[in-house]
């Protein structure tokens, strides 16, 4: 039996939504902001992350680590989510898309959010989102 091994992420991006049937990403985003008429602090209702994983075998635990408010060093807030299990199958060269909906994301202030994808506790991908005020 093949031993599980941590996959490699070839892509890790944020977007508005993902069409699971069509396997397409809708409107990739690099920045998020409060809804019109809203202000900080606020809650961002839904954001999708997409990871393209390969070179993995078997089942793995994935989780996200969020670093909030990166514009102010003293106030970095780290939050690690609970774990979810994914199955990478038995073919190590297979490529698996992993849609990750993130709901009720807290936005305290404008700045940056650093998002890490952890697989069995190991960082496999990282992306940064800008949090900005509407002009």
């Amino acid at each position: 039996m093949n031993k599980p091994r941590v996959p490699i992420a070839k892509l890790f991006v944020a977007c508005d939504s993902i069409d699971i049937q069509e396997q397409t990403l809708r409107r990739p985003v690099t920045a998020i902001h409060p809804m019109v008429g809203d202000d900080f602090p606020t809650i961002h209702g839904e954001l999708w992350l997409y990871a393209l994983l390969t070179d993995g075998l078997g089942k793995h635990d994935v989780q996200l680590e969020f670093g909030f408010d990166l514009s102010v060093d003293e106030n970095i807030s780290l939050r690690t989510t609970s774990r979810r299990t994914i199955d990478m199958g038995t073919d190590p060269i297979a490529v698996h898309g992993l849609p990750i909906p993130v709901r009720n994301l807290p936005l305290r202030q404008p700045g940056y959010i650093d998002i890490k994808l952890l697989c069995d506790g190991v960082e496999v991908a990282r992306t940064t989102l800008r949090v900005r005020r509407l002009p």
Partner: protein
Amino acid sequence: MSVKYGRSIVESSMLPPVEFDFAETVAAGPAASLNLSIQVPAAADTKALARDLGGLVQLLSQLDRDWGGAGVVIDERASRIDGDRLLLVLRARDVRWSRSRFERMAKLLREFALEDPAGPAGVLPEDVVQQILDVKPNGSPLDVASFLKNCAGVRVQAAVV
């Protein structure tokens, strides 16, 4: 003779979505508490000490809010005087992610408070404890380090439970 070098077309699939929701009541394990075991020198000015410890709770509460929580409160039922020590149990108003915030606070306290403990310990009078319990949160996170450095002789041990 043909040689098979490998595959250039690989299987591609979409895994089922894995969802994370920040509104989960308990996202990082069960609700945690920050237990402060406070040992004071026998000759300590108890009124000043009560004020200082109250300030410490204020600052930790402010830290909690700055790190995404809603402040901390003293668990009066779990807090107690134990010989020459005061055990102060703090709980988060917002339990979501409270363990990670408490672990960061404990680390901060360890960095500043466990060095240079001074003198024999005394016993905290009841009225001093009451003064500590009456403190309302209103502090500044940047003052934590300087506050703890000025709190000479008071030994604070922090543990997340």
